[in-house]
């Protein structure tokens, strides 16, 4: 059949296609742009190194100092605890908002509305001062007898910090998770239902893994914001990273280098979280893309092999 043979005129003058050489496209503007960025970067580094105001000696002295590292660990601890509690709270909130029951969805909507409205700083101070409002908390039969605890000793400033961060995080996480669940195609629910797969299994085996694709980038954003929000608990005199560097520069007056200590640690932690994000997202991309994006190591290896 002549229709199926491709036209051959293109390879006229006796050449066959096998002799043709591929010339990669050239990108002169990319090179110009790269050069410009490199010059600006060199200027920035020069400024950082030569300006004595940065006081890199003090920076180096405090960067790994014990009180700073302890404070750093507390910051990490608050972030992890806030994220775990927040996302554990976010799952039922998302489920409630998606529920057909108007009471459940109304309660979840109100919770999210309230805790997204109140600034975190205000919330933290509020929880820390709960003792003035209710001197004791009771556990027992509603309107009946029960045990009572003094509020201040039960919550404490650390508890107040954790409570504030977790509630704040839960309100946002609830919306992030809900968005993810909504992004899963209705046909997936129908297929799982038609196969008679039990409800709970439908959720965690079929729907949630697909929802994770949409949840993860936003969840990572939320986690990084939480990391930095922990610096707000300094108002409760909790010795996390930001509070600790304030204490130190309050003593020695070297404000800029100590702020840099905190900043560089926040930058490092954010970098670690971003790397984690890449690998977790890649894990959940299975099946959603035809071929997975290469990891930086695989890219490096491929580049070296050339």
């Amino acid at each position: 059949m002549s229709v199926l043979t491709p036209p051959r005129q293109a390879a006229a003058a006796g050449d066959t296609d096998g002799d043709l050489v591929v010339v990669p496209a050239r990108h002169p503007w990319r090179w110009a742009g790269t050069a410009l960025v490199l010059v600006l970067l060199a200027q920035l580094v020069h400024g950082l190194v030569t300006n004595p105001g940065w006081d890199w000696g003090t920076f180096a002295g405090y960067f790994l100092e014990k009180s700073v590292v302890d404070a750093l660990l507390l910051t990490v601890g608050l972030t992890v605890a806030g994220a775990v509690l927040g996302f554990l709270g976010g799952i039922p909130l998302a489920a409630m908002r998606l529920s057909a029951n108007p009471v459940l969805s109304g309660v979840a909507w109100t919770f999210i509305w309230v805790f997204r409205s109140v600034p975190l700083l205000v919330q933290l101070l509020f929880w820390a001062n709960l003792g003035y409002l209710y001197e004791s908390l009771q556990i027992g039969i509603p309107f009946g007898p029960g045990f009572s605890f003094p509020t201040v000793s039960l919550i404490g400033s650390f508890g107040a910090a954790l409570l504030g961060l977790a509630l704040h995080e839960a309100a946002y996480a609830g919306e992030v998770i809900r968005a993810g669940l909504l992004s899963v195609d209705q046909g997936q629910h129908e297929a799982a239902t038609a196969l008679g797969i039990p409800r709970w299994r439908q959720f965690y085996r079929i729907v949630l893994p697909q929802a994770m694709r949409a949840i993860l980038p936003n969840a990572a954003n939320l986690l990084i914001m939480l990391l930095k929000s922990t610096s707000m608990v300094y108002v409760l005199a909790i010795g996390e990273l930001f509070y600790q560097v304030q204490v130190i520069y309050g003593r020695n007056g070297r404000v800029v280098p100590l702020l840099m200590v905190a900043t560089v640690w926040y930058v490092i932690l954010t970098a670690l979280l971003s790397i984690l994000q890449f690998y977790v997202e890649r894990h959940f991309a299975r099946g959603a893309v035809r071929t997975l994006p290469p990891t930086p190591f695989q890219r490096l290896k491929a580049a070296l092999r050339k």
Partner: protein
Amino acid sequence: MIEISGVHKSFGPIEVLKGIDLTVEAGTVTVILGPSGSGKSTLLRCINRLEKVNSGTVRVDGELIGYEQRGNRLHELSERRILQQRVGIGFVFQNFNLFPHLTALQNVAEARHSALRKTKSQAYEKAHELLALVDLWDRAGAYPRQLSGGQQQRVAIARALALEPKLILFDEPTSALDPELVGEVLDVLRDLARAGTTMIVVTHEIGFAREVADTVVFMDSGRIVEQGTPAQVLDHPRHERTRAFLSKVLV
């Protein structure tokens, strides 16, 4: 074996099914034809209760779907019991609806493990057999997006077969496929028919209906207009609407 009687279904003010009565014998193939919007998909979805009916009943092997009869009252079953009933009824969708994050093998094995409660190794063993049956034994590890449309639909058929259903419902299984892929899916359906699987197939493939169907049903605007053997309905339609429809699809 399957008895549908007096099924009415409305979406809001629109009545989509206006009293459907249909009996399907075990081991037979019923093909449903009809113009777009006549309610074919809705009827299939009412059989496995993806849609609730407004009135009427569906029985599979004498078992009432979605309800329990006590005296002369019908009590609605719990979601859990309905899920168990669906295990006996396979459903193949027009756009496959495979689970994209699971491999072909996992797609087939999933419900056999979680709904039929077979052990994982039993489920995977059967899944391998079923993939071989639809001629895809070599693509077990592929994700749905790495497969062609025809291959995806064959995986979807294997997935429905994994529950060893009494009845399989096909909703236009070939209409999302390129013409050259239709044949491979119809071949699988033909094999199933020969093996005595009870099937209800909504399709516009008249040639397939003529060759494989025991009964052809023609639907129009929510009613069954006529039904009979392929020779009766396709070659000697008694109703004007059937004739008009056939003259359009047969050109």
